[in-house]
């Protein structure tokens, strides 16, 4: 039977900690407003110049950009939260105190990231609310169910990469080259800021090796044009394929990382 008390305890602890930094907490919310406003006026500047490339996504750059930036937050959270939270607990000295309790390291790693994912979900929701209420974002055709399924698959894929990265840091203590590569290539090749159709053909081929490409394409179709699950099958199958490869790999990498760190006696060192 799953013990829900521990993840809830982690969430409560992180929520209280975050709120204790009151100014920073509200600034993060205000930051979203200024980001969305910036996207809106940037899109207004471009006008219809990019329309040929945006036609597959409804033709509006503001909508295209908002979804790209909002959902790429999940990419960052998935990649960085696991390794980042372990490192924070190591620096704070609290990891050792947690490991003394009858709590598996996997529970600690996953539960530590719960707040990050929930806050990211909250911030994405705020992005959309501001977009809809203040800047006329049209999501009346949105297929929420499909969007949520895509979100779950995206979290699985990027969390797997994040856990592999965390395993790396557990052994070597510094550096997350995998995260850097995935993050940078996402922005460049994944369709976050511009459609991949803008890229030359040889770069466009590389885009298809990045899971964010499928996420953003499918989410845009689902939210802006109301595509059904059937119509999104190619992207869903691609994301499932990435999940099937990366999830078991991440579990193996994590087990190896923990075993190695325990042998070295370096689990709580940073």
């Amino acid at each position: 039977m799953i013990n829900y008390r521990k993840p809830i305890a982690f969430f409560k602890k992180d929520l209280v900690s975050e709120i204790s930094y009151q100014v920073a907490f509200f600034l993060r919310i205000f930051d979203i407003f200024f980001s969305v406003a910036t996207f809106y006026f940037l899109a207004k500047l471009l006008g219809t110049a990019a329309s040929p490339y945006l036609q597959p996504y409804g033709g509006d750059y503001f909508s295209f950009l908002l979804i790209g930036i909002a959902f790429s937050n999940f990419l960052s959270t998935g990649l960085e939260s696991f390794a980042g939270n372990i490192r924070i607990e190591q620096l704070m000295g609290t990891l050792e105190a947690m490991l003394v309790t009858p709590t598996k390291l996997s529970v600690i790693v996953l539960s530590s990231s719960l707040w990050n994912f929930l806050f990211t979900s909250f911030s994405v929701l705020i992005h959309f609310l501001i977009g809809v209420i203040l800047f006329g974002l049209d999501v009346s055709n949105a297929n929420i169910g499909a969007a949520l399924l895509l979100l779950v698959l995206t979290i699985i894929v990027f969390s797997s990469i994040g856990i592999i990265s965390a395993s790396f840091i557990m052994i070597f203590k510094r550096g997350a080259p995998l995260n850097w590569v995935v993050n940078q290539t996402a922005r460049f090749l994944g369709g976050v800021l511009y459609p991949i159709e803008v890229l030359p053909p040889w770069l466009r081929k590389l885009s298809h090796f990045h899971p964010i490409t499928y996420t953003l394409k499918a989410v845009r179709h689902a939210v802006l044009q109301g595509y059904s699950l059937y119509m999104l099958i190619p992207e869903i199958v691609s994301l499932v394929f990435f999940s099937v490869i990366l999830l078991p790999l991440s579990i193996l990498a994590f087990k190896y990382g923990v075993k190695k760190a325990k042998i070295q006696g370096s689990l709580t060192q940073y």
Partner: protein
Amino acid sequence: MVTCEERSFYWRLTGRQNLQFYGALYNLKTSEIRNRIRQLSHLLELEDILEQRFDSYSTGTKQKMAIARALIHDPEIIFMDEPTRSLDPLIAAEVRSFIKKELVEQQGKTIVLATHQLQEAEQLCDRIAVMNRGQFIAVGSLEELHTAFEKTRVCVLKTKQPIGQLTPLLYHVMGSKEIFIRQITPTFIEIEFPNEAIIQGKLTDLIMNTGVEVEECKILEPSLEKIFVHLAENRMGQLYDKL
């Protein structure tokens, strides 16, 4: 486990919130955590500060919190890593008294205490394991260690003028197998010798008859610190086998 590492708490949470979090990690239910916090805060006199943030606590209070956290799930065995380090003498004495009287004598808990303060080990421990360079070099009760150590005694000799030729004379007469001399200053030496009355008598006679003006000459009662130093210097390594 109790450590003196105050960083192992969340400083922006209150004492209560910290204990609630760790209580959950020990698989305790909410009601159990609530009851245990009430009991422990009363026992450790933390009631007045539990709603304050951890970063506002004094060092002594932080250490009490570490003890409260270790006790939240009512374990039978507790590991304590230097629980009185960085505490002022008054608070350190309170903590030691709490460990001895409340945890061990009242509650019957087993404490495994790691400490560099040998007086603390002498005061608190029923059995002592001496480690040097990661190895156990002696294990036993304090009585057993004293008995083993008392196979040699130490004579402290302070003179009014530099000891000079006294040291080689002592070695010449007594023999280097029977005594070991540690020179602390030119007028202060320690002489370790087998705990035999004849040898002690011979030694004191020799010192008195050398003509050196003696300021102080006394046979020391062995302390755990002396036992440790001598064990670590491998003077008594063979005693480990005999304990």
